[in-house]
């Protein structure tokens, strides 16, 4: 009979300790980030949910009365909520695809070989790198009906007879801001897609062209599948960002004229910050969060899959 050497106790302990350490160390390293996230993201979220169930007007700080779901039922009756919701849907449904398509076209162009390509790739990021407030002010001047360059150009080439107050006309204001945001956001898609394009091996294209595949078929069967992962993640992320973005609208029109450029985050912000009604403002923010949750869950699932 052969005997199996049994490690003595003193040898087991360090091995176990090392294993335990390996398990605990990541948690220990992650915990500061988790704690900070809990403090600055999760805690305010819970607080918002709690405030949305109370009457809480900031200039009456002592009055904090429980009202249950009163604000939520008021929201359903609120004309401005429905106007804002419709604008939010339009805002997302036009801006994100427009940014994605423009970004795709730009990425395909930047993936070609041409002189000064690195410079072009660096320049394209400028709209994305500029602060939103600067972009909003710049475009507000472009659209200005008295001195704006857009009206001036259109009048000169004879497309317009009279200058149009793009931001003061309720029929054009929202679309004018959508164009601004498209301009601001398309470089993000361009850069993401460009990275995706560079990860597709050249050999695929060589093999396809040997088989006689046209450029369009190559794009459809090689390029698109190759960047689909990046594109999907970018669209999900961008949808969440665009949905929440209100700084450009706030600076360009403040929601006006009337309610013509109100979106839900802007409405929640104005209620809470300008009218100081934190109860109703919080309920609006919570409602919007619930509406957006579907997209957020989709994104989280996708990130989880990527981790595994």
């Amino acid at each position, binding site marked *: 009979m052969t005997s199996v050497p049994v490690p003595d106790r003193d040898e087991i302990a360090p091995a176990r300790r090392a294993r335990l350490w390996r398990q605990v160390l990541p948690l220990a390293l992650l915990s500061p980030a988790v704690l900070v996230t809990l403090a600055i993201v999760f805690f305010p979220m819970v607080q918002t949910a709690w405030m949305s169930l109370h009457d809480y007007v900031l200039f009456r700080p002592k009055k904090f009365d429980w009202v249950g779901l009163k604000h939520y039922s008021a929201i359903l009756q609120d004309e401005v909520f429905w106007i804002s919701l419709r604008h939010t849907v339009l805002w997302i449904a036009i801006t994100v695809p427009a940014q994605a398509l423009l970004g795709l076209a730009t990425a395909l162009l930047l993936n070609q070989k041409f002189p000064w390509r690195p410079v072009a790739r660096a320049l394209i990021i400028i709209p994305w790198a500029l602060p939103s407030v600067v972009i909003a002010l710049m475009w507000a001047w472009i659209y200005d009906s008295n001195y704006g360059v857009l009206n001036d150009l259109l009048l000169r080439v004879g497309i317009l007879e009279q200058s149009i107050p793009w931001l*003061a006309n309720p029929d054009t204001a929202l679309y004018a801001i959508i164009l601004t945001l498209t301009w601001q956001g398309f470089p993000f898609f361009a850069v993401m897609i460009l990275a995706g394009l560079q990860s597709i091996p050249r050999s695929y294209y060589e093999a396809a062209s040997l088989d006689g595949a046209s450029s369009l078929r190559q794009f459809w069967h090689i390029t698109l599948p190759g960047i689909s992962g990046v594109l999907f993640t970018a669209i999900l992320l961008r949808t969440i960002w665009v949905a929440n973005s209100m700084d450009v609208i706030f600076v360009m029109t403040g929601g*006006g*004229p009337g309610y013509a450029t109100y979106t839900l985050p802007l409405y929640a912000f104005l209620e809470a910050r300008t009218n100081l009604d934190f109860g109703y403002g919080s309920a609006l923010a919570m409602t919007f969060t619930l509406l957006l949750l579907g997209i957020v869950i989709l994104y989280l699932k996708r990130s989880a899959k990527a981790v595994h």
Partner: protein
Amino acid sequence: MKRTISALSLLAGLAPGIASADSTVRFWYHFDNPENPMSDLVAKFEEANPGIRIDAQNVPWNSYYDNLYTAIVGGNAPDAAMLKMFALPRLLEMEALEPLDEMIAGWEGRDDILDNLFDLTEAEDGKHYYLPVQYVALYLYYRADMFEELGLAPPETCEEFREAAIKLTRDTNGDGKIDTYGFGFRGGKSGHEHWGAFTLGREGVALDDSLTSEAGVAGTQFVMDLFQKDKVFPPSAPNDGFQEIIGAFKTGVTAMTIHHVGSSNDLVAALGDKVAAVPVPECGGGRWTTFGDESTGVLSNASDKEAAWKWISFLSSEGNNALFNSATGQLPVTKSDSASWDQHEKRFVEATQASLPFAHLLPASSATPEFVNTVWPTNMQRALNGEITAAQMNEAIAKLFAEE
């Protein structure tokens, strides 16, 4: 949570105290003028008052009150601040202000403050929480050269105003496009001052239920007609703010607008003698214009209230008040500085003084800030763009004031 915030603010408040025995007065103000003399005023004050340090912060006007209210609730309010009367009811509800009556009574500069200003700034409870620092009254600016060219006289009534505005709206270079509009209307925030001049002067009309009366609705309708039927406002009017109305007037895009003496130097620099001023026209049997008040106050959380008072009373004293107003472009509140005032052309100071008899403050109500910030602009913009009627707009405003 409140306890945490208070503890944090206590720590924040203690920190400078530990570092130095001197007291620091945190002062919030809002100046648009880039030539800001605040550092000169601070240096002068600190020299005269060793031991008190002034930390003056210029907070942008558009979010001034949003920031102030949030800072008060967050426990991080300044020790003293520039304040307007419309904010007083809210600030009192928040118990954020220190009564100044005792300090004013013992202040040597008291008798130098213009006569009726302490009456105007008295709170509903009879106390004084504000110390006046500047004032203006809004009047009508007009292009004297264009009026002369068309043989028009400055309008005395709403009807004359409308007639003049229609005549002044014209294509001056024959290209088929309108180059000059009769009136630059402010449809964005603070434009209630323009609307008020056409609406609130009418007999029996005020910011309450009377707005829904025939006379009240007629006022709003008058404004809407000027835009929709007579087309005497630039098409951008619904969104236009201060920069736009002044810019358009300076460049000849508009021939009239309403503002106060604060913009007169800028307009004279651009237009010289071509710009003149008269009180706003009489509409529906009366006149109404905005009294633009500005005071300073000591906040109840101030760590050294005496130091804060010393600083604000310094700003309303002879000489200092003149320097302060040379930056804001408004008028001094001291008798001595008013007597020697030469910072504005005489015709604009006269138009201001002629407007004082019918210059009004907005109602002392908690609803007033909401009226100024959101209810008036959104409803006016919707009315101008034909989304709601004049009656609906006035009802929305009357409802807001009835709720409070």
